[in-house]
């Protein structure tokens, strides 16, 4: 065996040491030191001969691996593969997710308190980025991050002991960390307590995260990450399990009436805290902060921080569709943080009847004699008066005045002045094309108010007759004058109620 073969055949630690040595021969001493640092592997794998070895069962969301039933610790081998994949974010919208195991959130990991976990992080060769993993279940610097930093096409191994029970977040901690997390690099690891967990009928795995797309919510196509929106914490998407609608319709969580449901709920973030709520359910038990220490009972909404978790348990009592939301509601209804639990089975109409009656409801008016009733009457009257007095409030335009004025004209004036406004030659002067009407608006108002008798000249022709005063309101006078001054080719301008009032006051 020659030197190179020797190196290649030894265990990684030895081979790399020799690699570093050989590399040093080619480099300056300074660079050699740097090279030794860069090439240095971790220590030898931790040996735990006394423990049985088992491979972890990894499943994708929303499913959870079966409970661990053994009553002793084991050496659990976890192989988690990082893949960068294009996946549906919403209908017509794709995103390049960086995933632990090909799904968002990553594979659910399940170990038992006291287990020694041999963790292998495998970064697929097609990856663009290096990645690592920080498991909050790890007691140790970085939570495994530095020990698992892995270039594309490489695999890292580290070992930790699961000291504390709980449901813990894991996530990538490679720069820029918010981008790696926003791109989907989070998941959960359950460390079962030694004493075990109460059996339930259904276990589900749901995580919330934000996606900072360059496009607006719903903008179609393959969307890029937007670092500015991330910095400002303005995500177009807040979703459960990596996509809008991931837990809706055929993908909804399922249960039957009378079953107990346990949801492991975590928030990957990277930034937002969730107000997790299931519409129409009260959580029988909530393990806040993912801790088994002191559960709460009868909880409506539980606050789950970014990088934190909770376990909620409840027994389904009645059938129906129960909506999972972040009760910061625009996230649920406008950004996607919405899922469904469909419960099937017989109804219990005592617990919840469903709609029993649907009838017309008129509501109650205020009593006529009451103080409120009087006040309402006053306000209504004041409002009507204001409308009547003020054409602008009433929305009275010149066109409306003309229309109303025409009705006045046809109720009285037309008999003498004729419907076409031409009057009768020598007897009743014309309004159409009348220089007399055009010349003086105030005189016209006075004539309608007070009447006119004696000789006048209209369009060069003499008339000598009597027009009686008209019994019109100021508004009617304004309208009818506006009509005659703007009809049959006339374009003499409108007359306002205020102008009529003004003349009316002067002439009294």
């Amino acid at each position, binding site marked *: 065996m020659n030197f190179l073969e020797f190196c290649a055949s030894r265990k990684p630690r030895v081979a790399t040491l020799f690699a570093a040595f050989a590399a040093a021969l080619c480099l300056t001493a300074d660079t050699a030191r740097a090279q030794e640092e860069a090439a240095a592997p971790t220590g030898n794998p931790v040996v735990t001969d006394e423990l049985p070895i088992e491979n972890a069962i990894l499943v994708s969301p929303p499913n959870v691996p079966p409970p661990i039933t053994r009553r002793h610790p084991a050496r659990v081998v976890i192989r988690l593969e990082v893949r960068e994949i294009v996946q549906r974010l919403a209908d017509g919208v794709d995103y390049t997710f960086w995933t632990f195991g090909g799904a968002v959130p990553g594979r659910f990991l399940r170990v038992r308190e006291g287990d020694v976990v041999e963790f292998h992080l495998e970064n697929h060769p097609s990856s663009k980025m290096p990645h690592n993993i920080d498991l909050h279940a790890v007691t140790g610097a970085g939570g495994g991050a530095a020990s698992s*930093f*892995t270039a594309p096409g490489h695999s890292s191994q580290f070992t930790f002991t699961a000291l504390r029970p709980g449901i813990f977040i894991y996530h990538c901690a490679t720069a*820029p960390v918010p981008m790696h997390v926003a791109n989907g690099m989070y998941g959960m690891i359950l460390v079962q307590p030694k004493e075990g967990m109460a059996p339930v009928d259904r276990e589900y795995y749901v995580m919330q995260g934000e996606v900072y797309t360059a496009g607006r919510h719903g903008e179609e196509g393959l969307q890029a990450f937007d670092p500015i929106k991330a910095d400002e914490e303005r995500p177009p998407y807040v979703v459960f399990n990596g996509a809008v609608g991931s837990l809706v319709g055929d993908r909804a969580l399922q249960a039957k009436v009378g079953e107990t449901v346990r949801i492991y709920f975590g928030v990957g973030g990277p930034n937002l805290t969730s107000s997790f709520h299931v519409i129409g359910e009260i959580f029988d038990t909530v393990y806040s902060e993912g801790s088994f220490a002191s559960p709460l009972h009868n909880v409506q909404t539980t606050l789950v921080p970014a990088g934190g978790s909770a376990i909620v348990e409840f027994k389904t009592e009645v059938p129906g569709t129960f909506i999972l939301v972040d009760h910061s509601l625009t996230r649920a209804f406008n950004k996607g943080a919405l899922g469904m639990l469909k419960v099937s089975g017989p109804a219990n109409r005592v617990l919840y009847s469903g709609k029993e009656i649907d009838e017309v409801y008129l509501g109650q008016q205020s009593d006529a004699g009451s103080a409120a009733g009087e006040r309402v009457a006053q306000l209504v009257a004041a409002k009507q008066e204001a409308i009547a007095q003020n054409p602008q409030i009433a929305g009275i335009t010149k066109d409306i005045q003309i229309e109303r004025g025409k009705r006045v004209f046809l109720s009285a004036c037309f008999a003498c002045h004729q419907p076409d406004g031409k009057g009768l030659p020598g007897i009743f002067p014309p309004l159409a094309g009348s220089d007399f009407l055009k010349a003086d608006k105030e005189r016209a108002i006075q004539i309608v108010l007070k009447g006119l008798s004696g000789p006048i000249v209209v369009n060069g022709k003499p008339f000598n007759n009597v027009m009686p005063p008209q019994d019109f309101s100021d508004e009617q006078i304004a309208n009818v004058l506006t009509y005659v001054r703007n009809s049959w080719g006339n374009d003499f301008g409108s007359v306002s109620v205020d102008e009529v009032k003004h003349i009316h006051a002067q002439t009294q």
Partner: protein
Amino acid sequence: MMFPLRQNRTVRGAHMALARRARPASASILRIRPLAAMWTLGFALAAAAHAIPAEATAPMVLIPAGEYKPLFVAEKDPAAVPVPAFQLDERPVTNAEFLAFVTAQPKWRRSRVSPLFADHGYLADWADDLVLGSGAPADAPVVRVSWFAARAFASWAGKRLPTTAEWERAAAAGYTTTDGATEPAYRADVLNWFSRPNPWPLPAAGCGRPNLFGVHDLAGLVWEWVADFNTALVNGDARGDSGLDRELFCSAGSVGARDTTNYPAFMRAGFRSSLHASYVVPNLGFRCAR
């Protein structure tokens, strides 16, 4: 020497201080310093004997003297370090060029390369030792090459690998200004690359829109080796870096990074620090400087 690394000596010194504390074993390496110097001299002479005309490889572009602003700076370090003028390949080294190299230097062929200098998977996209095949178009950038192999190619071509300072100095430019971070169109193009999976096979080198200096594909095609990749001041846990060893790096503030919004710079630093010199990575190539 081939790798002066003077531009960021202070940063590297700080890094080495960490390394020494963390890994006392490095003392044993130091004892071989004189031997290493002799071997290095020998390698350099051998490389010179095999040098080919530079015209046989990528055309080069003059990058005028300027400065490099490291992403992570220690308190006593200047915010920017000067970078003298240098020549940089206008595009990454192609499969065809690397084929010429391994044809001339058989020890770098896939079947013969030492496992010390290139991990399993070296040139794995090629059909055979001297056959590119459909997975490795002749004009596409060569990838799955180790730092050792890239360095050997550069010597053979009469060039060298750029330093981090040089590479980042050239890559900081946008399409129209020396600071691409302030060009929305440039930033968007760079970020778009991260949002798309690697195409396979890779497209031709030199087709990307040239930057201000006329250099193609510094962003948007492949990652690239630099001579001093292992001085990247990012440990495996990126969150620790800003607070790492404050007396060394950031006693004055809680933020060790110069610009926390420069995502591409973070990603390049992170990528480099994930590498070992023997690694061969499917989207990692290189270009040369002089």
